[in-house]
C-alpha cells in the first residue's frame, strides 16, 4: 500500500516534482520512465544542498563524538571526575586557577582545567554533551510519538475527541514552559525519592525527560491535526473507508505516510530547542547536578569564573553555538528538500 503517499505527493507537488523526476530517470535509464519514491527525490534534493550536507555531517559528528565519549576519553587517558590537581599540585596556582596560560590548555589538557577542582575540561565536555544530547534525543522521540499519535487521532476522529484533545493542548500551552520545568523538577524528583535522601542521577535524568515531554508535544500535535483534517477528506482515504478499512489501519497506512514530512522537519527544529532548554535547566541549577558532567552545568561554572578564567567558556560555548547553528541550518535544508516550493 505505497500508492497513497505517492499520489498525495504527486498531487500536491506535481509541477515541481515531475520534471525533476523524469529528467533524472532519462539520464540514468536511457529514456525509460521509472517511478521514484518521494523519499528518494527528497534525498536527491538534499544531496545537492551543500549547506545542508555540511551541517548534517557536523551534527552527525556531534552525536557520534558524544556517543563515543567513553572510548575517546579512554584513548585520551583521562576521565571527567578525577581531580588532577590532587596528583599534580602545579596545575593550579595558589588561588585555585590554572597556572598555565589560557586556562591551562596544554598537550595534556586539550581544553584546559577546571579552576578550583582541577578536573579536565575536554572529557567533561564530551561526557556533558553525551548527557545533554541523550536527554534531548529521548525527549524528542517521546514528543514525536505522543504528538503524532494524539495529533493524528484528534484530526482523524474529529468531533468530541478532537474537542477535548484541543482543550487539553490549550491548557498545557497555558503553562509558562520554562518556569514550569524549573518549578516541577524538584516535585517530580520527589515523586521517586523520599525527601532528605540523596537523589541518584538517573532519577534527575528521568525527571528532566518527563517535564520536557509533558509540555513539549502540543505544537507538533496541533500541526499534525491540521494536516490530517485536510487529508481525511481526500479521495484515497475515502476509498480506504469504502473498502472497509478500520480507523487504525487508515491512520497507520493512509495518513501516517503523508505526515512524515512535517514530523521530520519539526523534529529537526525541536531537538536543538530541547538541548538548549536542558542546558538552561542545568545552568539554573535545577537540572543535572555535580558531579555528573553536563553541557549546561559547564556554563554555570563558566559564568561564575568568567572574570578570572574566560577560556573556560570558550570550548563548551563554541561547541554549543556550532551545534545549534548547524542544527537550525539542517532543519531549513530538510524543509527545503521535502518542500522545494517553500523557499527561504
Amino acid at each position, binding site marked *: 500500500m505505497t500508492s497513497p503517499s505517492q499520489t498525495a505527493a504527486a498531487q500536491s507537488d506535481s509541477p515541481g516534482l515531475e520534471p525533476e523526476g523524469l529528467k533524472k530517470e532519462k539520464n540514468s535509464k536511457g529514456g525509460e520512465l521509472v517511478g521514484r519514491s518521494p523519499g528518494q527525490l527528497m534525498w536527491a534534493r538534499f544531496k545537492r544542498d551543500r549547506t545542508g550536507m555540511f551541517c548534517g555531517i557536523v551534527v552527525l559528528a556531534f552525536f557520534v563524538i558524544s556517543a563515543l565519549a567513553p572510548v575517546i576519553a579512554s584513548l585520551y587517558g583521562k576521565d571527567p571526575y578525577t581531580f588532577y590537581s590532587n596528583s599534580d599540585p602545579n596545575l593550579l596556582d595558589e588561588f585555585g586557577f590554572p597556572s598555565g596560560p589560557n586556562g591551562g590548555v596544554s598537550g595534556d589538557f586539550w581544553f584546559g582545567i577546571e579552576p578550583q577542582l582541577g578536573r579536565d575540561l575536554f572529557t567533561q565536555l564530551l561526557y556533558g554533551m553525551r548527557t545533554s544530547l541523550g536527554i534531548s534525543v529521548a525527549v524528542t522521540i517521546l514528543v514525536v510519538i505522543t504528538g503524532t499519535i494524539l495529533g493524528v487521532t484528534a484530526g482523524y476522529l474529529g468531533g468530541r475527541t478532537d474537542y477535548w484533545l484541543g482543550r487539553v493542548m490549550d491548557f498545557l500551552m497555558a503553562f509558562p514552559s520554562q*518556569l514550569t520545568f*524549573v*518549578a516541577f523538577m524538584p516535585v517530580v524528583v520527589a515523586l521517586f525519592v523520599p525527601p532528605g535522601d540523596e537523589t541518584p542521577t538517573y532519577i534527575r535524568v528521568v525527571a528532566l525527560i518527563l517535564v520536557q515531554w509533558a509540555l513539549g508535544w502540543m505544537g507538533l500535535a496541533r500541526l499534525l491535526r491540521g494536516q490530517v483534517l485536510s487529508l481525511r477528506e481526500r479521495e484515497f482515504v475515502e476509498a480506504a473507508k469504502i473498502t472497509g478499512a478500520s480507523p487504525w489501519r487508515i491512520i497507520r497506512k493512509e495518513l501516517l505516510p503523508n505526515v512524515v514530512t512535517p514530523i521530520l522537519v519539526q523534529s529537526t527544529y525541536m531537538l536543538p530547542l530541547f538541548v538548549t532548554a536542558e542546558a538552561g535547566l542545568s545552568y539554573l541549577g535545577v537540572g543535572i547536578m555535580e558531579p555528573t558532567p553536563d553541557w549546561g552545568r559547564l556554563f554555570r561554572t563558566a559564568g561564575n569564573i*568568567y572574570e578570572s578564567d574566560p577560556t573556560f567558556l570558550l570550548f563548551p560555548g563554541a561547541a*554549543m*553555538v556550532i551545534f545549534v547553528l548547524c542544527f537550525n541550518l539542517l532543519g531549513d535544508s530538510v524543509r527545503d528538500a521535502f518542500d522545494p516550493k517553500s523557499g527561504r
Partner: protein
Amino acid sequence: MLPFLFRRTFGAIVTLILLSAVTFFVFFAVGDPALMACGKNCTADNIALIHQNLGLDKPLPTQYWDFLSGIFVGRDYSIGHCGAPCFGYSFATKQDVWSTMIDRLPTTASLALGGAVAFLVIGIGAGLLAAWKRGTFLDKAVTSISMVLSSVQIYILGPIVLGIFVYSGIMDSPKYVDLTSNPAGWFMGLLLPWLVMSTIFTAQYTRMSRSTMIEQLQEEHVRTAKAKGMPARYVFLRYAWRGSLIPIVTILGMDLSSLFGGAMITEFTFSLAGIGRLAIDSVTTLDLPMVLGVMLFSAALILVFNIIVDAAYAFIDPRVRLS
C-alpha cells in the same frame, strides 16, 4: 470587541483555576510538603509553621479551596491575617508571598518589556532592511548574522558581554534602578541585559519580517500603489509593512512564555532580583508556596498579554473579526 474580551477573559480564568488546581495537587500530593520544604536541616518549629500555614491536617480539596479563596478574600492564619490577594507565607523567608512578588515585579517587567522592544525593533528593522536591499550583500550579511546570533544562548553571551563591558570597567554592573526616580539609571542598568536577552529572539523576527515583506511587495495592491507613482519608501512602509505585521504579531504571541523564560535566565546571568530569580531561588530551597505563587502569577500575566496580542490583530488587520 467586548464579547471577545469577555469570552477570552472567562477562558483565561477557567485556565488559571485548572492550572492552580493541577499545580497545587502536584505540589502537595507528593508527600508531606512540610518535610519536603524542610529538607535536611529541619526543626520542629519549621514543621509547625508549615503545617499551620497549609492546614495540612485537612483533606486536599479543602486545602485547595482554602488556598483559592485566600487569593480573593484573604485568609486567617494563627500568626495573623493575610490580606486579600493571599498566596500564603514563604517557607524560607517567612515573608508574604504576594508582597514579595509585587516587590520583584518591576524588575522582571522592565526586563521583559524592554527586551521585547529591543528584539522587535532590531529584528523587524533588520528584516525590513534586508527586504529593502534584497539580494545584495547587505541582505546576505543581515540574514547570516542574525542566524548566527540566534544560536548564541543567553548563558553564553551573558558572561562574554559582562567581560567586555563590565569587568573591563567601561560600564557598571547591570542592576535594576527604579524607573520613576532615575530613568537614565534604569536605562543604563538594564541596557546590557536587554541586548543579551534579545539576541535569541531577534533572528526569527528578522527572517519573518524579511520573507513576509518580500511576499507583500509582490501583492497587487503594492503594485498598484507603485504604478500610481507613489514614492517607493512610502509604499514600502505604509502598504507592504502593514500586511507583514500579522505573522509577526502571531509569533510574538507564541513567544510570550519563552520571553518569561528568557527573562528568568537573564536575571540569573546578570544577578537581577526579579520574579524569575525568585522562582529559581524558591525552587532550590523547595519553598512551595512561593513557587506556586510565582507559577500562577506569571501564568496570569502571560494569559493577559495573550489576550492583548489577539486583540491587536483586529487593530492591524480590519478583516480579522474577533468572534
